[in-house]
């Protein structure tokens, strides 16, 4: 059974994936790299691809909308990532308490994250409606005149962040499994040393769940750069480009203006940014991430 000939049969079994890797990943990556240095009006055939060197990148660095989309994406990530982490940790801590009904609460908090993004978006367009949306109606009870949310350039991005907070169920579940991995004897030792609940949280829980925080940080940054459906459906980047997320801008360049070379260059910049941030978080992690035992090698 272990002769090399029969081991080679393994290639046949991974063949579908291997073909897919070439057709749908490696091939497109090379093509995309070529495109990012080219100008191509898609309507004409492949022959009209024109090598233009760094022109696309030069144009991008003078493109105001490019900077606007970076700004929108970074503001979103910088505000929402920490906000979502704090909210998720708080809820996960509550859900981690041993008492009845926690399964039920866990279901409720997780529910929004299984709802299709389009449906969530439609729902919140209605909620944010300045005249008959429930949010402004609720604010009116407190005598507050709510803003026009999605129609107001200074509130639209904030509105999307608020909506995101509603769907942090995923993150809560990740923290919950992180919390369940904290050994009970640490808390018992803390108890013996007379640590109060706050002290226990900052000296035991938080250091023990930093790998989870680390994971969510990376995913949050990546998520910001991939944000699309909600922005497309709810605001389409407006008003006044105040919600022009990077991915939306990339889509507009590729599929509205059919500037495939330019859009490909944008996609490589996106890749680079995600890589840099991921590496940055990984490199800095040794300062603040605590791994329990040798778990990091698993």
């Amino acid at each position, binding site marked *: *059974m272990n002769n090399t000939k029969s*081991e080679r*049969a*393994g*290639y*046949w*079994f*991974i063949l*579908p*994936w291997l073909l*897919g*890797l070439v057709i*749908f*990943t490696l*091939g*497109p*990556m090379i093509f*995309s790299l070529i*495109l990012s240095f080219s100008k191509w009006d898609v309507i004409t055939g*492949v022959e009209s691809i024109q090598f233009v060197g760094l022109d696309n990148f030069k144009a991008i660095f003078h493109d105001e909308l490019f900077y606007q989309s970076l700004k929108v994406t970074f503001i979103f990530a910088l505000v929402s990532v920490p906000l979502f982490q704090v909210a998720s940790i708080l*809820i996960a801590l*509550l*859900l981690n308490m041993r*008492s009845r009904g926690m399964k039920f609460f866990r*279901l*409720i*908090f*997780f*529910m*929004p994250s*299984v*709802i*299709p*993004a*389009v*449906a969530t978006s*439609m*729902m919140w367009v*209605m*909620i944010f409606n300045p005249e008959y949306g*429930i949010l402004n109606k609720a604010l009116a009870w407190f005598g507050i005149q709510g803003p026009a949310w999605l129609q107001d350039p200074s509130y639209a991005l904030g509105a999307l962040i608020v909506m995101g907070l*509603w769907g942090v169920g995923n993150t809560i579940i*990740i923290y919950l*499994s992180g919390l369940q991995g904290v050994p009970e004897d640490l808390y018992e030792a803390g108890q013996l040393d007379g640590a109060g609940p706050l002290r226990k949280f900052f000296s035991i829980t938080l250091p023990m769940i930093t790998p*989870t925080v*680390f*994971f969510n940080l*990376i995913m949050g940054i*990546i998520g910001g750069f991939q944000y699309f*459906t909600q922005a*497309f*459906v709810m605001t389409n980047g407006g008003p006044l480009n105040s919600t022009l997320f990077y*991915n939306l801008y990339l*889509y507009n360049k*590729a599929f509205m203006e059919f500037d*495939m070379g330019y859009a*490909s260059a944008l*996609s490589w910049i*996106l*890749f680079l940014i995600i890589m840099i941030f991921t590496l940055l978080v990984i490199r800095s992690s040794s300062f603040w991430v605590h791994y329990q035992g040798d778990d990091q090698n698993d």
Partner: protein
Amino acid sequence: MQKIQPRFNLSQLIALLLLLGGSAIVLVPLLWTISTSLKTPAEVFGSAFWPTKWQWSNYADAVTAIPFFKFLGNTLIILIPVMIGTVFTSAISAYGFARFNFRGKRTLFLVLLATMMLPSQVTLIPTFLLFKQVGLTNSFLPLVLPAFFGQNAFNIFLVRQFMRGIPRELDESAYVDGANRWQIFTRIMMPLSKAPLVAVSIFTFMGVWNDFQGPLIYLNSNEKYTLALGLSMFKGLYNVEWNMLMAATILIMLPALILFFIAQKYFIEGISISSAVKG
């Protein structure tokens, strides 16, 4: 230990109140969407939370105002082959990685893991151009074909991890009994890997049901739209009647929510595993 500790009970009570408050924040928007879907247009503008009389006819109107069943059919035409393709190719590739020691396996497996990190935007444009070049845009094929080439590395990883836990004695004794590799795969490994394959099917269902950007890019004519895409277009194309729009929104949420309640275990485990893999 049985002594009542009042401080403990107080913190329990506060926690319960916080959880109830949080749940209300989650549930009120959903309940309000349901109530809006049952209101008359006049009531939508009013301030009452619930309608005076539940207008179930909004749902009938919604499914005719947007070609709901047409869009549902389109979604299923994509969904069913994608599920079959994904389950089969993740199983077969996982088997190859779990049970054979061919040359370059480690490298290929690392490449597989690396593809999980690649943002889809990088391959989006060239893949679109590829399909455009062969004349397949505005068809379901670009949304279906990649599934037959194991283009979701996480699924392969998930099934491969599980298969590695199946005792090797099982396939070896079958091999001694004269079964070939293919038979070992179809008769032993596939049936034994039911649990991760069910998980893969559920994730795939959710992925296709939720997918928006894919159909948006590839499908240009209304009669090809999926539900997710159709719903968003409904908002733009027609003179929006909020009650009907919310009825359609509820209808699209429903299958995802039902699947979640039936198979919650898989959702929660899936998320924990994916964070363990990538973290």
